[in-house]
Every structure is written in structure tokens, then in C-alpha cells.
């Protein structure tokens, strides 16, 4: 294969990936997540379907059992709430009162079974205030798989 035909093949692959991303990717990214209120609007048709759901973690709703790795909490958009269940450890920035996005399946009975939990963080960066506990060493996440973290 000459250098030229290799390049041409590469260019075709890049062009194909690009058109796929512009067509499919933008459309999917435009509705990256739905809110609890939007999920409820879908009514019974939402049951047993996969979604990405985003909202704020309701303060006081988080229960996590480190022994069984069972995590339950509620997500809200200020209007409606959805109960979320997940097995595993959430990201370190996952906290009550902050934004989270969950991926998984909506079951009947206002229950969402999440396979992935993503924590949103704000665009504000501040040093810790005096007396405030230091943030956890999040970089350790990069060195240890989540299963080995406490």
C-alpha cells in the first residue's frame, strides 16, 4: 500500500467519524439528560426505558451501605423527585445538594436503576476556608480502581 492510499483511507475514516458525530452526536448531545419533571411527563411510556437523568441530589436522601455498596438517593429539579438506586461507589464529588447525572433504566413506581453516576461540579474555584476540612485527595481515584477504594 502506498503512502497516498494509506492517507486516503485515513481521510475517509476521519470524514466518516466526523459526519457520524455531526449527525448523531450533536442530536444526542442536545438532549444530554432529562429532568425528573420531564421524566414524569412521559408517564407510563417511560417505564423500562433507558435515560440519562440529571438533577440535584436531595439533601438528606442519600443512603449508602459500604458493606453491600447499595446506594439510594433522590434527584430533583425543584419540581419533581425521582428515587435512584445504584450498586457501587459514587464519584468523590457526589454530595447532597449538588448536581448529579445518572445513566440507567426507569422502572415503574418512580424508581430509577442507575448503572452510572456522574457528579457535576461548578465553575467556581476557591481555596478552602479557615477551619474547613481539606478536600479529599481525589487524584488517588486515578491510581486505584473504584472497587479498591473504601
Amino acid at each position: 500500500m502506498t503512502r497516498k492510499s494509506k492517507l486516503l483511507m485515513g481521510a475517509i475514516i476521519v470524514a466518516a467519524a466526523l459526519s457520524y458525530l455531526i449527525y448523531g452526536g450533536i442530536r444526542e448531545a442536545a438532549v444530554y439528560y432529562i429532568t425528573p419533571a420531564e421524566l414524569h411527563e412521559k408517564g407510563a411510556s417511560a417505564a423500562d426505558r433507558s435515560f440519562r437523568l440529571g438533577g440535584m441530589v436531595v439533601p438528606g436522601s442519600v443512603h449508602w451501605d459500604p458493606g453491600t455498596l447499595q446506594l439510594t438517593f433522590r434527584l430533583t429539579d425543584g419540581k419533581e423527585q425521582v428515587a435512584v438506586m445504584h450498586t457501587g461507589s459514587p464519584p468523590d464529588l457526589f454530595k447532597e445538594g449538588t448536581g448529579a447525572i445518572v445513566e440507567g433504566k426507569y422502572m415503574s413506581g418512580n424508581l430509577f436503576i442507575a448503572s452510572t453516576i456522574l457528579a457535576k461540579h461548578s465553575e467556581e474555584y476557591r481555596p478552602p476556608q479557615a477551619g474547613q476540612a481539606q478536600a479529599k485527595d481525589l487524584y488517588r481515584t486515578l491510581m486505584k480502581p473504584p472497587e479498591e477504594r473504601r
Partner: protein
Amino acid sequence: MIGRGLERALGILAVIGLVTGLYTGFLYAPPDAVQGEVQRIMYLHVPLILVSYFAFFVVFVTSILYLARRCERHDAIAHSSAEIGVLFTALAIAAGSIWGRPTWGTWWTWDARLTTTTILLLIFIGYLMLRALVDDPSRGATFGAVLGIIGFLDVPIIHMSVVWWRTLHQPASVLRPGPSTVAPDMQVALYTNLAAFVLLYGYFLVKRVRLEKARWELIRLRMEGAA
């Protein structure tokens, strides 16, 4: 001769800037209240992507100038700037991915910010492939200029993506309306690193354009030798 002096000055200033950037980023700036030490990746991620935007803006402007005046020098600048832009964008994406794993809880997700940035990278990888594929220099330059102008239009879309669509990525901390969301000590680290990467970009650009001119000179000499 002036070019060589400028190149050396930019190189020295870039090294000084990068060393100062390491100091301000790792030692001068405090850790973040929420994210701790890992937030320092910002001092690499943000300057890299901002300089990439600038590199593609240079491609945009010099491509328009090339189409208007057909001057080879403008094309050499566009082609060189696109190469550096691809390098810096790829590094920005890699740094962002490493930042995302401990904070968001994932290396990657297809939200609008990440998707439009990947599109930018692919457009300019395609640009470089196109330049390598077309043998006729003036046709290659014309095709490249058209693609370079269209490709740059993705940059404002990336910047606005966090406003227009729901994303996992947080809104902008720099280049935003209103007061800065970054603490003053952290801004020092952010802007020294930004300055350092701007200087590094300038150094790469001047050097790469000089190499391109040397290549033309070589082709000219070969043709003269053959004649």
C-alpha cells in the same frame, strides 16, 4: 535573520514561562476547596484549549487572507498553526479526560462540550490529511483555506455549547461575562500558564513557518539543479 532572533527569544521566554507556570500551578496556588489537589489540572487544560482556539483563529484569518491575496506566506502560517492547534487540542482533551475521572466519575461522556471539541479535532486532523494528500501546492492551499475557515466556526459553538445545551461540563470560568469565578491566587497560576503556552505556540509557529520556507527553497534549488 530577524526570524531567528525572534524564534530564540520566544523559545527562551516560553521556557521561563513554563517553569514559572509549574511553580505557580503547583506551589503558589492553593488547592481547591471542593476538588483538592486534582483541580490543578486546570492550569494545563484551560491554557491548552484557549491556545488551540487562538491557533485555529489564526488559521481562519490567514486562510481568508490567502484566498483574497494568494500569498504563499499566509498559507504557510495557516498550515503551521493548524498543526500546532491539533497538537494542543489533543493534549487539552487528554488533560480534561484525566481531570474528569476523579471529579465527574468518568473518563469520557458524549455531552455537547466534549462532542463539539472532538469534532474540532477531527476537522483539523482532516485538514492536515487533505494537505498531505493534494500534490499541487496551490490547490492544496485553496482546499485547506476553505476547510480551515469552515473548521474555525466550530470554536464559538464549543464555547457556547455549555450555555446552549445541557452538559456534564461546567460553564466557562474564563472568557465569560461577569466577575471571574476563579480565586485571585488561582488566577495567577492560570494566567502565567496561559502566557507560557501562548509563548510556546508563538515559538512553534515561527519555527514551523521557517521550516516551511526552507522546504520551498529546497524545492526551488532542486528544480534549478535539474534544469
